[in-house]
């Protein structure tokens, strides 16, 4: 019976699984990358700018099919717009149609004249490469992106995430410490710092960064899990338990597994105490 139930749960999780978690930020002051990416824009912000900004905004509102059709119809009039191909790529990106997204990013690269547009295309191609586990290729794309537009924050942020993925915490910290981020507040940047410091063993610095993150964001499962680990390391088992308990469960299987591991550790440790 037990095994059947577990299987059912796994199947259910699998069916709903996604590589995404809700990273929407409604408070724009905590989105230092808002000028470069719509991905984390909360519904209110998207709604507010949908009309006056780019059509691609609608893809982030779940209207990818309609928006892509609109792009088709607009080809004659807007095909030459610097962002035309990029935004089609982004709509496909939102649809997780990676090959199509890649195709249009390459189109953008091919047709773009502005370095900023080329930079964006490289950044996005980097992400596509990561989707295919082509880490080195992706990193190269990000480097190209940064070289073309040194003031862009997103490629740096993305590079920092790559470093975090491969345990290159110092590199991550180094990249995130770039002047481009200076004077800005950002949930993910701050969390990345906290994570990097935690995993490189600098609990103090990690604690500082965790302290900067507004409380409401600790419900995000990745932040919650990381913060719980921090709390365990600092001996705050109770706090860790509360953190992990208060998390909003994502449908990311691996993250769910980590959270469950943490819960297990906590249970064990608290028993030991």
């Amino acid at each position, binding site marked *: 019976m037990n095994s059947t139930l577990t299987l059912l749960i796994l199947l259910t999780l699998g069916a709903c699984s996604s590589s995404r*978690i809700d990273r929407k930020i409604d408070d724009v002051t905590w989105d230092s990358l808002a000028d470069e990416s719509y991905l984390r824009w909360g519904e209110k912000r998207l709604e507010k700018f949908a009309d006056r900004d780019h059509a691609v905004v609608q893809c982030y509102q779940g209207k990818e099919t309609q928006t892509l059709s609109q792009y088709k*119809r607009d080809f004659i009039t807007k095909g030459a717009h610097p962002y035309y191909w990029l935004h089609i790529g982004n709509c496909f*990106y939102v649809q997780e149609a990676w090959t199509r997204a890649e195709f249009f990013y390459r189109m953008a690269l091919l047709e773009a004249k502005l370095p900023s547009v080329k930079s964006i295309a490289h950044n996005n191609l980097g992400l596509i490469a990561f989707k295919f*586990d082509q880490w080195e290729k992706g990193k190269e794309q990000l480097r190209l992106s940064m070289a073309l537009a040194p003031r862009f924050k997103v490629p740096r942020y993305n590079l920092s995430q*790559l470093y975090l993925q491969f*345990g290159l915490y110092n590199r991550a910290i180094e990249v995130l410490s770039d002047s481009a981020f200076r004077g800005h507040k950002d949930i993910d940047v701050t969390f990345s710092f906290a994570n990097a410091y935690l995993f490189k063993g600098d609990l103090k610095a990690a604690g500082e960064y965790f302290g900067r993150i507004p409380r409401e964001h600790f419900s995000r499962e990745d932040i919650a899990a990381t913060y719980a680990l921090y709390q365990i390391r600092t001996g705050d088992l109770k706090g860790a338990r509360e953190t992990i308990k208060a998390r909003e469960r994502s449908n990311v299987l691996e993250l769910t597994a980590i959270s469950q591991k943490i819960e297990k550790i906590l249970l064990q440790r608290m028993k030991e105490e």
Partner: protein
Amino acid sequence: MKTLLLALIMACPLHAEVMESKDARWAKLMGLVGQEMRILEAAKKKGVEIKYRMLELHSERLKLIHEKNNREFLAGSKASGSGKDKEKYFIETRAYYQTTKDFGQKILREEARNSRKAEILYALALNSRDYGRDNVTEKYLLEVIGLVADPRNSLRHHAQTALADFYYNDKRFPEAITYYQRVIQNEEDDWKTKHLFNLSWCYLKNREFDRAIDTIKSSYFESKNPAYVNIRDQVLENIGSFYVYAGRPLDGLSFYLENEKNPLPYLMPMALKASDKGHEKETREILDAAQKVIDRSALHQHQEELFHTYLDFYRHYNRFTDHEKTSRALVAYYQKAREAATADKKTPLKQELRDDAIEKMRSLAGFLQVKLAKDVRKDAANYSTGELEIVLSYFSHLVMLDEVRKAEYLYFRAETYFSVNSHQLAADSYVESVGEARKAKNLDLARKSLNSLLALTGQEELPKAQNKKYLIFAYSGHVDLWPRDEKSEQIYPKLFEIYREAFDDGAATALIAQYHKAYPEHLSEQQTFMTKILDQFIERKNTLKLNHWIGEFKKGFLSFPRESVEKTEIVLGNLLFMEYQELAKKGERLAAAKGFEGLYVHKLYPDKVKYQAAFFAAMAYLELGETEKSFYWQELAHARMTEEQKLERREEQLRMAERTYRLQDFPTAYKIAELLLSKWCDRRDEVQNRFFEIAVMTALVDERHNDAERVVVQHSRCLIRPETRDSSLAQIYQALENKGDFFKLRSFVQRHQIEPYVTQYRYTLQKWYWEKNDVNLKTHIRAEFRDLKHSETLAWLAEINLYKEAEKDFADLKASVVWQRPQFDGDLFNQALETYLLKLKAFKERYQSLSQSSQVDLAIVTTRLFSQVYRHVGETVQAQRPLGMDGETLVQFSAAMKNLSQQFLTVSLQYEKTLNTALLEKETLSWGARSIASVEAIENPVFSFFTGLPMDKSKD
């Protein structure tokens, strides 16, 4: 023929019978005369009586001979059509006359005392009068009168009568009067009325008019006496003239009105006579009186004649207006008469003089027409419009009266208008005339009218447009009636030019067809004409007409060469599409597409136009972003293209395929590319190369790796640059690798065992082996390493296995206990420690190489493993606390162990440091690096997913 034969059969016996009876009678009479003559001649003694009888018989025979000669003359005249050589026919008469005369004179000579002398002379006188040329009639008659003194003697009366007639006939009226006056004294002469009549004529001729009237009146009244021969009719016919000659026509009118119930047959001749003699006023009175009689007594049978008499009267006095009025009345009369005859055959309304009426009107119209022309020639502005009206009226009357010659009258009317420079009316009348002539199949008149109309248009007196209208009528009429004719041959080009200039393509093309039919030898000129019309269609964008003619040319009209027809088709296409292309340019692409669709479905258009329409529809839909519809129309276009056209459109379709994938429709772009790649494979050019690339690329974007590979397998021979095949295979390889599908990648590499991806494949598998968590996959990869039998993969496999052993050994090492005896023994402890450290040494010796493995992940995890092993060993050594050891010894022992352990911990840290330095320096992005990062043995939560962000815009 049958009718004629029948007539002959019927007529011949009758004719023969009549002839027989005449001849028989003549022969019988001759026989009788001859018989009697023979009897008398046979008489031995012939007295005066016998001789006189014989003279009578001779005279009788002379009469019969003359009768016969006369018949022969009539027959001969009839046969020859002339009465010449008359005397030749009467030779026998003359000869027998002489015989008879000689016989009579012989009697006169032989018989001195001759009681029949007067009779003989009388007979000779009459024979001379009737058959002779010797002019002895008067002489013999006078002798007879001289011989017969008794005024009551009938011979004397006959001689006087004959002599009066002789003088009358010889126009010796006074002598005639003398003898007639004597003759009429004889009350017993039945012919007194005749003699009175003759006498009245003699008076008339002698200009004794009153006596003449009195005498003829006597004849009229005596005729009422049954004792005399009634010559009333003769008298009535002549008495009117007598009155006229006497200058008393109205008395004549009175005579007739008073004495005859129906004087009409006599009034009209009298009126004419009166008219002739200048009694205009009286004539009118007579005619009006006659009309009254008709009206009063309903003598309508005379109406026709009366009208005619009026006409003659008016014509005589040039009273044209009256003449015309009467003509109008006459026309009305004839109409009425015709209607009456139709209703009742016994109608009194006669139509016997209809032809005469026509002639009278024609004559007068002709006369006036000539007069008008003369007047106009003298002074164009000075002619009688009244006369013109009259002439025109006559032609109208004639049209009514003489329908058979209606065309002719219309023509005359036109000529009349023309003669007075009324060009417009003349032209209209010529047109009417032609129409009528054509109806009546009077081609001569039609030609005449058309020629006159042409002459008129040649003067260019009419307004230009009008002139052209009539010119067209004349030309077209001419070629219609005489399609192959010297004049028509000249007209065709001229008429064509007129039609062309007027943009009357319907007429122009019909004319070309007509010209071609009549003159096929002028084909080249006709083709030139047709081309000019086509140019107009093109200029005016008249696509329907162009289309129609393309169809006709294809059916063979004017035998245009194929190239010309094709050129026209192209032009047609361009025109048809221009409108919708303009719409497309204006941004109304849907309307343009629908327009092209409409052209495609139009059943009249040729395939070329249809294919172009479909193709343009495809382009319009493409511009609308409707890629599937675009392809649908491309396919329809293809179905109607020739191979040549398909090839011509190939590069456009290449661009359409490119546009299609740019419009996010990769499956459709693939279809286009694959279709054309197959179709034109043999051309092996850059276009084919590009189709190949598109087919592969679009299949891969849609993750249809099999399709991409199939394109490479089937169509690589279509490439001009073979390297494209390799790069395409590399793309497929990359796509499969990205997909992470081990089995597909393996089978792909098995099918295409070529560099660089045979090598790359090994590294891909190695990467997957370390990165992927799937245990089954790892098993498959290890098996593949083995199956590849490549030194590299075999080495990697050995290393992987070795590492597994390393992990196991490490686990064993961790499980190993250095010293656990209850009592410490230095030697034994050293041996135990040595044994433990030897394990480490053995571990190091056995697995050290793995940290240098070309498998980066393996090297990383091995290094980390070594770090862990050394740390474990160091910590294990440091942690040794043997039982049974005193406190001081324990302190020294611990210090020694710490020193010893420190070496291992240092090595451990060095491993760790080296690893971190290497990872940091090389920024190694491999699973190995990730796998060593953890807190509380829990991997970093951020490893769960990549939190990178796509970029949408720049702040600028």
